[in-house]
């Protein structure tokens, strides 16, 4: 069932030519986590702020659980927001911060204490209720911000780059925590990030945004494996990009090689995107629809995965091979054959 619906949401900032958010529409089912993913300035934070009521859309509508909230002020929307800087109240303790939303909603004092304790326990901060924000570490502040947003049982949880202020190791930990808490409570959530790993790891649905529009709205797998546009293919994940010409539908000419693809434009110049993990080293004698002779030019070791940069008749390719395999031992100058399924080639008109 649709819980959050955005209809042609648009926001123009005075003095700028292009709208920051340009007619965004989407439906988000109850309990799902949506990641708004895109580079800075793509309109993802503005979209989030419009959902929260902190920014007023110039056009379009926002519906939560069938109710139109477009013209409601933020304090009447019942949404939990976690800000990038956390925005914890410095003059209140962790418990005071968490209690704030309950108090504003008129929750009785006795009930409030229990719900504050529950919310702090939910994020693993039982012993920190009396601490002021400045006495907490970055990760702890983050958790207080999450507990504060969730304590009033919001209709929608909104997170604005909640992990960007944390260091790499903590980020992964808190990321998994947020996801676990969100799934336990079943709170429909919108999450803004510029980090594709975060988006792919946490989200049920990813909306890749570019210049105020949604380029693709799909599951993480779909976005990664079958990018809908050239922008999505370049922004999410790595890919080798080959200049090509459509010979006939399903057949392409790239450099001196001929490649088969499941889907191509009817004719004309095109660009082929190949994800590194879609290229497989072929054992001798094994045939494939697309088999390319290649020579390793560079090898990057990152532990479990080895990235091989190769020259081939089709152009420069990137291949990922698992550590511990025969191909992982290849060195620059070594020759190999790489195969790729026609369905794994993404072809966009150039």
């Amino acid at each position, binding site marked *: 069932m649709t819980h959050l619906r955005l209809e042609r949401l648009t926001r123009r900032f005075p003095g700028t030519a292009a709208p920051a958010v340009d007619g965004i529409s989407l439906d988000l089912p109850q309990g799902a986590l949506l990641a708004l993913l895109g580079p800075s300035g793509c309109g993802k934070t503005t979209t989030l702020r419009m959902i929260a009521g902190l920014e007023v859309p110039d056009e379009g509508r926002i519906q939560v659980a069938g109710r139109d909230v477009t013209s409601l002020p*933020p*304090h009447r*929307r019942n949404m939990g927001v976690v800000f990038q800087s956390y925005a914890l109240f*410095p003059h209140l303790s962790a418990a005071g911060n968490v209690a704030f*939303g309950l108090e*504003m909603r008129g929750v009785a004092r006795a009930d409030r204490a229990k719900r504050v304790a529950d919310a702090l326990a939910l994020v693993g901060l039982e012993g920190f209720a009396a601490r002021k924000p400045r006495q907490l570490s970055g990760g702890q502040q983050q958790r207080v911000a999450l507990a504060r947003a969730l304590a009033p049982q919001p209709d929608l949880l909104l997170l604005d780059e909640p992990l960007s202020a944390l260091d790499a190791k903590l980020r992964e930990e808190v990321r998994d925590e947020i996801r676990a808490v969100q799934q336990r409570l079943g709170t429909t959530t919108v999450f803004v990030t510029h980090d594709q790993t975060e988006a792919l790891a946490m989200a049920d649905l990813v909306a890749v945004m570019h210049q105020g529009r949604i380029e693709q709205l799909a599951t993480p797998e779909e976005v990664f494996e079958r990018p809908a546009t050239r922008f999505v293919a370049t922004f999410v994940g790595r890919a080798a990009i080959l200049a090509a010409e459509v010979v006939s539908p399903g057949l392409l000419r790239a450099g001196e090689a001929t490649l088969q693809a499941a889907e191509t434009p009817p004719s004309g110049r095109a660009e082929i995107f190949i994800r590194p993990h879609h290229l497989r080293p072929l054992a001798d004698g094994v045939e494939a629809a697309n088999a390319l002779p290649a020579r390793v030019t560079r090898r990057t070791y990152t532990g479990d995965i080895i990235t091989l940069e190769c020259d081939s008749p089709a152009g420069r390719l990137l291949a990922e091979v698992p550590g511990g395999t025969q191909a992982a031992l290849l060195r620059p100058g070594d020759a190999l054959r790489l195969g790729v399924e026609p369905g794994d080639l993404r072809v966009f008109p150039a």
Partner: protein
Amino acid sequence: MIGLLLCLPAALILAAGFVWPVLLLGRISFNRTTDMGAMEEAWTLETYAKIVTDDFTWDLAWNTITLSAGAAAAAVALALPVTLLIRSAPPRWRGVLALMAVAPLLVSGTARVVGWMAILGDQGMINALLTGLGLTSQPLRLINNLTGVRIGLTESLMPYCCLVLIAGLSRLDSRLEEAAATLGATRSRTFFRVTLPLAAPALAAAFALAFVLGVSAFITPRLMGGGRVFVVATEIFDLALETVDWPAAAALAMLLLGTLVVAMVLRGVLAGREAPR
């Protein structure tokens, strides 16, 4: 080292123009006034004793403190909404609005008093309006009395309060108010539960500055009080130039200075204890 050298001219000017006269004043306060009214070189505490035991001094001190505290509180209360407006204005307007708020500092105190006379006098704007509307038959006495001094002092302290509050509130993160709104707080509850508590240190600093300036104010009480309002500063002036009792004027000035220094040190200690780090 070079920094210290560059501070030397300012230090010299301060030494010659401020420290030396204050020391001189301190010295004079220990002199004796003869029955004939002449000043006699001495090292005596007679003058201090006379001042401290005189009920009139305590009346003066009480008047001065209540007047400045009231005016400072009113100035802070009036400056706060102005500052909040400036803070919420679009960035390109902020500079202009801030300049407007402190513009009264660019006008001489005397000129401002003349302006107030045109507004508050018996034939002034306000009385003309009130009688014109038939609200009063007699003009209200708004100047040349305590009311006039209160109005004038409040107005003259407001720009200073604005300066302190603009600086203090610029560090207040507007995300905190947004966070309060998303947690269900109306605008007024956000103000009382978030904005005001966080602005408290700035409000205290503004009040302290305004109070100190109010206590030492001379022009406004003198010119807008019409000779009916007596504060410590006007009394020092009268003692020095009308009674020509220099030791008394000097001693009273030293007492005022000492009180202000003690008050400021106390405030510093209190503020330091409230805000660790």
